[in-house]
């Protein structure tokens, strides 16, 4: 078997096989489990880097297995896939290190790590999926693999949240399937193609049918990417343990939806056709509504994780917004936010987990003066907050800057108003937390839930948090260097939008 066929398979199995093995391991075999798991992650990361370099050099990786006539199981890598795959593999490693530190007080380790690995496997599959069928397959396995993680604590609240999550996800999946089947019945097998699989075919089909299919696909994906009003599950699902929330909010579930939207717009319909069908403006309006609505809801939450969850609802729609604005600059802004939102939000959830685990702090109102007790954690938190607001030189600024430039380039000035409003709202719900932590005096002595050690909390919790915070800075400050997410997104935009000349090149 050639390397080009083998590599996608190896990447999928590098996380799938160890995860399945874990189910057969007793909970007490901690050392073996961690060794196996971390080993798999390092192997996967190396494989992903090999593939990344290959794609950059222009090689292609494809694995095709015919399942039924007209239905292929297709794994294929391109620049867009690598962005998501790289994010998923990288964040898997940091989240696992965090989870090792966090999970010591929670039961069912083998089950947890098993499903954790399967979720990541599903995201790798989603990244590499080469057609809608394969995409759908991994989309559903992702739902099934994340459910046990959401209900991990098995409390009444967790089970109820899991129930809500399943109802949303399964219905969303069904709607997505309906769209896929309709499309397949109409035009036959559809593979993701740079520039749009349907490009040039529109003359043969009625616009109404294509619009209906578009709406079905986006609505199905919109559940996972939490478009208003399909976002209800996300704030509820934050009862999950911190590493799960971090992964769900940064890369696993919500990104699967956002990534699907990117695939559907650029590689199924193509911007030219989508523009002709006039579905992009409505999509951008939905995205803008979600951005504002999520922020307004975040404003009134006292529960820290809930506030972060609503912030996710808002921030995710930056990606959809970037996709929905025609033009290469906005595209870059939307796609790069896939990565930037991931590292910033995972940092915030890591911090929330540290606060809850070390000091039992779960609400914003308990955070007065907490920076005196946990300066490093709050530095990471503040960096991520600055990134979320979009302050230079952090990663979020790059996303917002390109989105704004794209909006101006496309002549859509109303998007500027949305971006400014979102910036102000982000400041309004994030800065009071930072203020309380750094400038207010503590209400009383903090109660340590774990014995104080050399650092302010366990180093396994602190190290991943500081790493992702540092990445937030690096991805912004060194945005124009080498393999930065921004440079990679420019590569993607250049490959996806061949027909669209780049207007703005500073």
């Amino acid at each position, binding site marked *: 078997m050639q390397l080009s066929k083998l590599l996608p398979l190896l990447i999928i199995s590098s996380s799938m096989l160890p995860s399945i093995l874990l189910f057969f391991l007793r909970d007490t075999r901690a050392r073996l489990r961690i060794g196996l798991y971390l080993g798999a992650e390092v192997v996967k990361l190396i494989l992903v880097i090999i593939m990344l370099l290959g794609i950059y050099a222009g090689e292609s990786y494809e694995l095709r297995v015919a399942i039924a006539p007209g239905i292929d199981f297709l794994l294929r890598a391109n620049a867009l896939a690598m962005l998501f795959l790289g994010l998923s593999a990288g964040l898997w490693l940091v989240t696992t290190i965090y989870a090792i530190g966090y999970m010591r007080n929670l039961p069912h380790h083998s089950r947890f790590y098993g499903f954790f690995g399967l979720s990541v496997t599903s995201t790798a599959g989603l990244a590499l999926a080469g057609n809608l069928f394969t995409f759908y397959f991994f989309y559903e396995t992702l739902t099934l693999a994340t459910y046990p993680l959401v209900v991990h604590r098995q409390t009444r609240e967790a089970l109820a949240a899991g129930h809500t999550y399943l109802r949303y996800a399964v219905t969303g999946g069904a709607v997505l399937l309906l769209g896929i089947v309709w499309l397949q019945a109409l035009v036959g097998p559809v593979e993701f193609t740079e520039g749009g699989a349907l490009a040039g075919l529109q003359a043969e089909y009625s616009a109404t049918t294509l619009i209906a299919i578009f709406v079905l696909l986006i609505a199905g994906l919109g559940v996972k990417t939490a478009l208003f009003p399909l976002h209800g599950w996300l704030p509820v699902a934050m009862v999950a343990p911190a590493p799960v929330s971090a992964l769900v909010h940064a890369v696993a579930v919500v990104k699967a939806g956002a990534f699907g939207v990117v695939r559907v717009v650029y590689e199924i319909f193509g911007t030219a056709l989508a523009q002709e069908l006039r579905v992009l403006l409505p999509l951008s309006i*939905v995205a803008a509504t979600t951005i504002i609505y999520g922020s307004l*809801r975040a404003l009134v939450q006292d529960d820290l994780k809930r506030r972060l969850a609503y912030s996710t609802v808002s921030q995710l729609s930056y990606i959809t917004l970037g996709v929905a604005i025609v033009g290469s600059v906005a595209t870059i802004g939307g796609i790069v936010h896939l990565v930037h939102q991931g590292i910033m939000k995972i940092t915030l959830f890591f911090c929330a987990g540290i606060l809850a685990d070390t000091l039992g702090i779960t609400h914003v109102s308990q955070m007065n003066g907490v920076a005196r007790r946990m300066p490093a954690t709050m530095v990471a938190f503040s960096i991520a907050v600055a990134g979320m607001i979009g302050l230079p030189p952090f990663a979020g600024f790059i996303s917002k800057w390109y989105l704004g430039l794209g909006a101006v380039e496309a002549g859509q000035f109303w998007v500027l108003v949305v971006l400014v409003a979102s910036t102000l709202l982000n400041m309004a719900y994030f800065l009071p937390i930072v203020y309380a932590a750094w400038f207010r005096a503590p209400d009383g002595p903090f109660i340590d839930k774990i014995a104080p050690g050399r650092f302010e909390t366990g180093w396994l919790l602190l190290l991943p948090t500081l790493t992702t915070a540092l990445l937030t800075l690096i991805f912004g400050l060194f945005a124009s260097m080498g393999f930065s997410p921004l440079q990679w997104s420019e590569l993607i935009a250049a490959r996806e939008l061949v027909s669209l000349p780049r207007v*703005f090149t*500073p």
Partner: protein
Amino acid sequence: MVRIDCCTRTGVAAASIYTLNIVLTTPVPWLLVVNLPLLLALLITQPRLWPVMRRLAAWAAAPALLLAAVATGEVVVETPLLLGMRLGLTGVTRVFLLFTATLWLLAGIYAQAYMARDPALNHFWGFYLLTLGGNLGVLLARDLVSFYLFFTVMGFAAYGLVAHNRSPTALQAARIYLILVIMGEAFLLPAMLLTAITTASYNLELVPLAIAQASNRNLIIGLLLAGFGVKAGALLLHMWLPLAHPAAPTPASAVLSGTMIKAGLLGWLLFLPLGAVALPEWGTVCMLVGLGATFYGVAIGLTQPNPKTILAYSSISQMGLMTVALAVTLMAPAERSLVLMTIMIYATHHALAKGALFLSVGMAAGASRVWHVWLVGVGTTLAALSMTGAPLSSGAIAKAFLKDATHVALPPWPGWLALLLQLSALATTLLMGRFLLAVWPQAQDAEKRLPLGMWLSWLTLLALMLGWFYVLPPGLLDAINRTLTFSALWPLVVGTLIVAAVHYGQRRWQQRTGNTLRLVIPEGDILVLVIAFLHALRRGWQLVVEPRWKAGWHHMTRRWSAYRQNISDWPDLAWLEHRLRSWPVAGTLFVVLVLVILALTH
């Protein structure tokens, strides 16, 4: 090529200049100058390094001063940071860098002595260094993105300086400051985005011309004026100044008022299409705003008891005069170089004089012996005289240039401006008189102290303020001969007489009735009205709109109203959220929304 000859003295000098020029074409010295304060700010978080850092922090602006001194000519270096950071100096920014670095350096040395016993010294130095890094970056940035970066860093870091002593007043001042910074951001972000697309480049040198030719240039200019106007303390956006400057520790007030508000002015100079196109409407707007600030600042400042507040209002007034100069070049683009020269001279004068005045407040509070009192009193008076534009002072030269510049404004302004400028000199004299009465060192208290560092930096700053203009080329220095005219002299004499008369009258009144006769307007003046208005708005919402809105919802959804639990938050989205959580509602709503939007956009 310069021939390197090591045997003669001129050879050595030539060789070192040659080496220097090579070094300056690499990014290293530029990045070092900007990042040194930021690096020190990072290191000061480490308790082990505190003793060293506290000594070093004061000197963080020294490399910048050195750079400004040696970097002649226009230099730009490119670095791969952010979106292609370019750093360098032009004629204008070099002048700004000279006075900015000088003032920061002297304020730093002053602060080392002044703040020595402060319980939160490391916080102070941390924010001081961050603000300094931002301020230097603003001056050195030659591309739009890094300019925005450093402007933002400076704006947010100064919050820590304003809030430093954590008293309720300081926190409230800092809060108002932050709100205005955020407001400024809301104007600046779209302004920057529009400018970038219009210019199709981040290169700052190309910006003014591109804006001049843009079809939506009025939008861009409006956003730029408002966005930078917050920092420059333009009228109606000035509310933070009189609160923040007194709240910050004295050396921080000096740099806030002396250099940081000039960053807003520099923003205008770098972005606005000065000299490229005549914009009479915007010129008139700036003229009115500038003149308004000039007199309004004095009028409110006269009612203030706190000397630092008086100085803050004086800054608003003086920035108003610089806005007038800006207005002139918006009206008469051909005179750009004259106006730029005027603004550079005025800004340098104001930075040094206002810095000296702020430091004087700390000196006056610490003076304990008789000769201290007299020395501080005389120095403070000299600084105040310079501010009023007394003959032979730097203020007089600055005003002479301003007067020349106003000649080229569009009619009917020149005629009016000649009179208004003299009136403004009178107004400034009144304000400075009021300041001197408020600040004059009096009590002798053994507890007080004036460390050597404070003396050194204060005296150096005074000396610079008195003599800096002798570095001007002879052609420009001639202006000093014109400062001994009647029009420069009468406002000072009349103003002094009025101050003396009012002071005497007040004392007589107090002796006779036992009451003090004084009008006090709260710091931040119109801020009080704004806050009252916002309160009224909120009250109106709660009393009128909210009940009806909620009643309307109740009416429409009577069957479900029993489920409502959470009515505490506004707007009442929690309840909406609860309803959305049932799938049929959310799904149907989504489909309906999409259909409606599709229908609307097709």
